[in-house]
């Protein structure tokens, strides 16, 4: 079995983010690392975050830094990754790519303890960069310019110190003196030797300054001083004339200013009032804002509160450090303060946001200062504050993030054309159920009812030079309605259009006149109001029209074509007639090429399943240039120029290809390339779009031609970052559409459906999925889909949080104390985290749940109707109980029908040792057609039931290392049989016939068999590789798919002969008596597929995302990405793609220096999986490289693109 791996949705979580001017000039951009993807974002004029570029780098990005050479206008990007190399990138604005400027190897690849890459620090003047590892190694590279002003990099200088753990490094701003780097270090050499344990207590963190002597080209330890043992983060303080220099050391509960030759200035970080005493406050992210006259720091704590830190200083001597409460936003991994007055917050879980500054915290607020620091016998006295509403920031945009995907199911609950992906995302108060549908989101601008059922709609400008459309023309069965577009859209009668007849086409003709084609003739409305009518000869009527701005072709009933051209005077002149062999089904004229008089090609579709290209040139007018037969009657034709390659911010530097698109009656979209000179058709592709013949319309997207295809659902064909994408729109069936441009909406679409006229715009181009969000209460763990009742049952649980009542009580108390007089809004039923609920003064989604002791748990079981997004039943578990597993089960006595089993643990603690008070299995009965739950009984068990599954009318439960079979009793569950031979903890159970596939948390899969006659469970096969299982899915009788904690996806299969032997063992003696070696099972499964995804896969499912498509394995990851693994069906395809992958590896090595093959084999050698993400980078290569690879493969670049498109279309 060979698989094709393709990422459907790139990771949405962010590892780190930096900001700077990467394209040069004044615009501020943000570079974010999303694990293995590097993105360039920019907030546009409207404050919406736009993704300019997104590159998969096939490696793990751990740190990013930006620097600027003195006098330069542009920032470079330094990437610290797992490649054992330092990589410096520059953003190339013209080509819209990251150019690799330097790549220097310094160590082994992989995230290792002593290989640098974890930390990056930059000299603020851009003269040197330091790369550090968690332990021992630190390397300094000197950056400079050569005579041609190109960036140069030196060989590395070592600043190693062995037996030393490094917590953070940063550059020290000391103007143009020798660059200095600071590091928080902890020496463990004595601790390792001292068995009394005293050395551990005495272990002391140090702040060390390393000076790079530019003259001697040498790094030396300049200064080292003791620092608070809770230190975890360093922040550079501006120096060299802008400030006092030195560093801010962020430690648990404190912020300390330190510099050589100065006493420490220490201030305590204010604490939230409700924080338990044993918890510290740790700074997790920091940003500096520097202006000419002032600077300040924004530090965010692990609870989400942002503090503004300012320094009082006088001639490099810092006298006071102030920490003032600023605002509270969800916890971030990085915050970026942009010069343009924005703050980009890269959230650690959940959506990222862009905020605008309203103020910079000048107003009085809770403030702690070094001057008022009080030390008592119990240590330093903390200061308390209560989080409040945003005062200094206002949120203006959100970037969706699925991180973390906790569970996922694909199901067509809504009975749409394609299945929906239900994902459980987020954590704590920011958790949500997100329903993903393949397709682009649209935003509806207007819907208005019309006095009848329209058949078609057009928009026209009055003049070629006009920016906006002047009229919307709607055609009915026997009339035409003209609406003028202005401040409002209203009906007009003075437009000159004939309104007593239906229309076939309406367009701008020549420079400034309008044309209406109706069944009996052509009405040509000149700019001055004169009207010319051309009438059809005899009783024949016009059936089809094709036109561009200068040419019109009409088809009369019977199959006669008449060709008109606009002459020099703007008059529409008949040029040629041509008799076709039969009626014409559809026709289209290619748009007039730039600087030409006419277009050369007319395409005519006939009822004999052919498409003909006719010439419109005067010398060979109406000659047939080529004929293409298609599988069914073409109903709609459209010429579209496609410039599918890189260049510019999303443009092309290649000559455009002219594509002829045809919508066939069977619902297939047929695309073929038209040779611009000869008109020959080649390279045809077809794709099934829906149950109706697609109607094709040309519209504008981002100033480029795009194609709208209306089948049983609408599709959009457009160019995004060099790829031509054909994506469904998440909208209802439309009849007819036209592009629409007005003052309010520059690039919209007007469409008719039923009796309504709709105006909409298409949003977030380039995304694969659009999502519907339903908020949840606690971190969702697992869910089950009740397909028949169309309901979901979700279990949610959170550690270290208070129950809803406790929280509500505390909130009320706090408001009463503050005398706001507001009643918090009320009762427990409204405790959902309703997104942007403006009335809620302290929405938990924003501020997080108050922290409780770590042994407290809250949990709930929820029945949700996803269609209406309503919770029909919510059971909150009491007494520290938390739900961890759920399944539906039909016991064989059928008294209650389907029941719900939920596995819970009471008082679970992980630290210092995993322990529980008790475990339970709850059995619930569904009431009101599944809408609510009633507890039948609760059975105490001796461990945490982490896996539950129905099996032959009974319930299988994995409790710790025991697999147990239960039957339903009146008062409790009854034990029927058990097997205690599993190595660690059972985390998944799947069954098929009499086989049970058990996943162990640490030891991969175990195949078991239940023998009913003996009432025994036997393990007959297991895996020889210790896999820390995070997700599993049953593929077939002998095969399981699994994913491990280290980011690998793998398939194991029981060899056919072993499987047969097991099944053909009539006495069962063998399976019973056979012993394995070393406590293992007698048989071993074989690994048949292995692939390193590079991200912890949390859920796997087999599903088909397109109607009639083959099934593939869909996976979701912690970083919020979705991917698919598709099995190849032919050997040829395997050969083709494995060769393409090989050439791509050779010709286009990954951007950040990790070897592709090594990355995909990071833990185990990759086996039988072809990396589609690498193959899909083919269109982004320069043209000559594309040709070179194509030659090696004996194909043309076009064929390769077609292959890539085809295989993608098989998945989504």
């Amino acid at each position, binding site marked *: 079995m060979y698989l094709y791996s393709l990422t459907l949705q790139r990771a949405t979580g962010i590892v780190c983010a930096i900001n700077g001017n990467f394209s040069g000039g004044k615009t501020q951009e943000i570079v974010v690392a999303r694990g293995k993807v590097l993105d360039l974002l920019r907030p546009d004029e409207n404050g919406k975050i736009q993704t300019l570029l997104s590159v998969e780098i096939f490696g793990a990005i751990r740190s990013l830094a930006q620097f600027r050479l003195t006098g330069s206008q542009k920032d470079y990007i330094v990437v610290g990754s797992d490649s054992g190399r330092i990589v410096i990138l520059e953003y190339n604005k013209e080509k819209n790519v990251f150019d690799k400027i330097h790549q220097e190897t310094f160590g082994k690849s992989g995230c290792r303890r002593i290989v640098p890459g974890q930390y990056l620090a930059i000299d603020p003047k851009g003269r040197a960069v330091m790369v550090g590892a*968690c332990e021992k190694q630190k390397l300094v590279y000197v950056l400079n310019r050569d005579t041609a002003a190109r960036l140069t990099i030196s060989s590395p200088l070592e600043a190693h110190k062995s037996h030393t753990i490094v917590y953070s490094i940063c550059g020290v701003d000391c103007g143009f003196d020798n660059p200095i780097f600071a590091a928080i270090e902890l020496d463990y050499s004595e601790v390792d030797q001292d068995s009394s344990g005293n050395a551990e207590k005495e272990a002391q963190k140090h702040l060390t300054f390393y000076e790079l002597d530019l003259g001697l080209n040498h790094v030396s330890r300049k200064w080292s001083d003791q620092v608070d043992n809770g230190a975890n983060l360093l922040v550079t303080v501006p120096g060299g004339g802008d400030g006092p220099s030195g560093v801010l050391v962020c430690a648990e509960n404190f912020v300390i200013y330190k510099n050589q030759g100065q006493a420490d200035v220490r201030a305590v970080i204010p604490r939230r009032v409700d924080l338990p005493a044993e918890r510290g406050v740790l700074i*997790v992210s920091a940003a500096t804002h520097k202006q000419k006259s002032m600077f300040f720091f924004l530090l965010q704590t692990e609870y989400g509160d942002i503090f503004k830190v300012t320094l009082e200083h006088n001639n490099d001597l810092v006298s006071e450090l102030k920490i003032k409460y600023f605002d509270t936003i969800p916890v971030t991994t990085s915050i970026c303060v942009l010069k343009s007055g924005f703050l980009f917050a890269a959230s650690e879980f959940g959506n990222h946001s862009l905020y605008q500054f309203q103020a910079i915290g000048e107003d009085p607020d809770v403030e702690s200062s070094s001057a008022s620091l009080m030390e008592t016998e119990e240590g330093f006295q903390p200061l308390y504050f209560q989080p409040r509403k945003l005062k200094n920031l206002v949120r203006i945009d959100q970037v969706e993030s699925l991180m*973390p995907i906790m569970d996922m199911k694909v199901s067509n609950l809504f009975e749409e054309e394609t299945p929906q992906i239900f994902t459980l995302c987020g954590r704590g108060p920011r958790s949500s159920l997100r329903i993903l549908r393949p397709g682009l989101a649209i935003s509806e601008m207007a819907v208005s009812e019309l006095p009848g059922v329209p058949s078609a709609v057009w928009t026209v400008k009055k003049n070629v030079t006009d920016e906006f459309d002047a009229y919307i023309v709607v055609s009915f069965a026997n009339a035409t309605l003209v609406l003028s577009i202005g401040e409002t859209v209203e009906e007009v009668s003075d437009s000159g259009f004939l309104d007593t007849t239906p229309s076939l086409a309406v367009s701008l003709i020549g420079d400034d006149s309008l044309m209406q084609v109706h069944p009996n003739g052509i009405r040509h409305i000149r700019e001055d109001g004169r009207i010319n009518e051309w009438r059809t000869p005899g009783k024949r009527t016009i059936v089809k029209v094709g036109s561009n701005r200068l040419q019109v072709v009409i088809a009369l009933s019977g199959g006669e074509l008449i060709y008109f051209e606009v002459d020099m005077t703007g008059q529409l002149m008949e040029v040629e007639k041509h008799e076709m062999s039969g009626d014409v089904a559809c026709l289209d004229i290619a748009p007039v090429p730039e600087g030409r008089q006419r277009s050369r090609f007319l395409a005519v579709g006939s009822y004999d399943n052919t498409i003909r290209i006719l010439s419109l040139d005067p010398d060979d007018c109406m000659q047939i240039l080529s004929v293409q037969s298609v599988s069914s009657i073409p109903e709609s034709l459209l010429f579209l120029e496609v410039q599918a390659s890189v260049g510019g911010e999303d443009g092309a530097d290649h000559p455009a290809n002219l594509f002829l698109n045809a919508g066939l009656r069977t619902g297939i979209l047929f695309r073929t390339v038209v040779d611009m000179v000869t008109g020959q058709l080649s390279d045809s592709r077809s794709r099934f779009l829906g149950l109706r013949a697609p109607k094709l319309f040309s519209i504008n997207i981002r100033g480029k031609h795009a194609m709208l295809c209306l089948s049983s659902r609408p599709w959009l064909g457009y160019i995004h970052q060099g790829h031509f994408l054909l994506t469904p729109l998440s909208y209802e069936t439309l009849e007819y559409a036209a592009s629409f441009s007005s003052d309010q909406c520059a690039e919209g679409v007007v469409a008719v459906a039923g009796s309504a006229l709709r105006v909409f715009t298409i949003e977030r181009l380039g995304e694969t999925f659009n999502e519907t969000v339903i908020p949840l209460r606690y*971190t969702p763990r697992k869910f089950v889909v009740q397909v028949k009742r169309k309901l979901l049952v979700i279990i949610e649980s959170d550690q270290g949080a208070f129950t809803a009542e406790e929280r509500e009580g505390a909130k009320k108390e706090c408001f009463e104390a503050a005398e706001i007089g507001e009643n918090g809004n009320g009762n427990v039923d409204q405790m959902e985290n309703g997104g942007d609920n403006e009335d809620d003064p302290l929405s938990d989604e924003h501020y997080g749940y108050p922290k409780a002791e770590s042994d407290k748990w809250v949990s709930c079981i929820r029945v949700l109707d996803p269609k209406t997004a309503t919770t029909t039943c919510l059971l909150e578990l009491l007494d520290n109980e938390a739900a961890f597993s759920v399944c539906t089960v039909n016991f064989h006595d059928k008294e209650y029908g389907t029941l719900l089993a939920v596995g819970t643990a009471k008082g679970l603690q992980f630290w210092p040792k995993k322990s529980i008070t008790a475990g339970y299995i709850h059995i619930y009965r569904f009431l009101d057609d599944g809408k609510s739950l009633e507890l039948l009984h609760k059975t105490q068990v001796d461990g945490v039931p982490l896996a539950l599954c129905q099996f032959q009318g009974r319930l299988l439960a994995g409790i710790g290392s025991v697999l147990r079979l239960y039957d339903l009793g009146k008062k409790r569950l009854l034990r029927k049989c058990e097997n205690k031979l599993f190595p660690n903890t059972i985390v998944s159970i799947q069954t098929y016939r009499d086989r049970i596939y058990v996943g162990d948390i640490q030891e991969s899969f175990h195949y078991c068999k239940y023998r009913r006659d003996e009432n025994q469970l036997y393990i007959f096969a297991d895996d020889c590789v210790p896999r820390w299982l995070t997700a599993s899915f049953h593929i077939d009788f002998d095969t399981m798919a699994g994913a491990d904690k280290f*980011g690998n996806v793998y398939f194991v299969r029981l060899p056919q002969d072993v499987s047969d032997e097991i099944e053909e063992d009539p006495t069962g003696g063998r399976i019973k008596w056979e012993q394995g070696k070393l406590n293992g099972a007698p048989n071993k499964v074989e690994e048949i597929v292995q692939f390193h995804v590079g991200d912890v896969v949390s859920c796997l499912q087999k599903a088909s995302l397109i109607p009639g498509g083959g099934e593939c394995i869909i996976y979701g990851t912690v970083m919020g990405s979705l991917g698919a693994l598709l099995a190849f069906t032919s050997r040829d395809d395997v050969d083709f793609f494995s060769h393409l992958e090989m050439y791509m590896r050779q010709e286009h090595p990954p951007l950040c220096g990790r070897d592709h093959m090594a990355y995909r084999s990071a833990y185990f050698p990759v086996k039988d999986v072809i990396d589609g993400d690498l193959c899909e980078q083919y269109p982004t290569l320069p043209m000559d490289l594309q040709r070179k690879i194509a030659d090696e493969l004996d194909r043309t670049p076009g064929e390769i693109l077609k292959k890539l498109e085809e295989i993608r279309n098989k998945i989504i």
Partner: protein
Amino acid sequence: MQASDRFNINSQLEHLQAKYVGTGHADLHRYEWAVNIQRDSYASYVGHYPILSYFALAENESIGRERYNFMQRMLLPCGPPPEREDD
């Protein structure tokens, strides 16, 4: 020191032990081995962001706190070393 000494197995091993932390030797104690494994593991957790987030989810802590905890545990991952009987 003769030229050949530089290439014999012992000096090579010493070189490796100096260069790569955690390279073992014949008399390696079980405790030292375990400490190395633990430190390597923590460094790997800190380096792989998805794994770090996975832990953060399990413990319901922020990712920054989790990273700090792992770095702190690198100091003495297996408790104080056992009493040495001098050999």
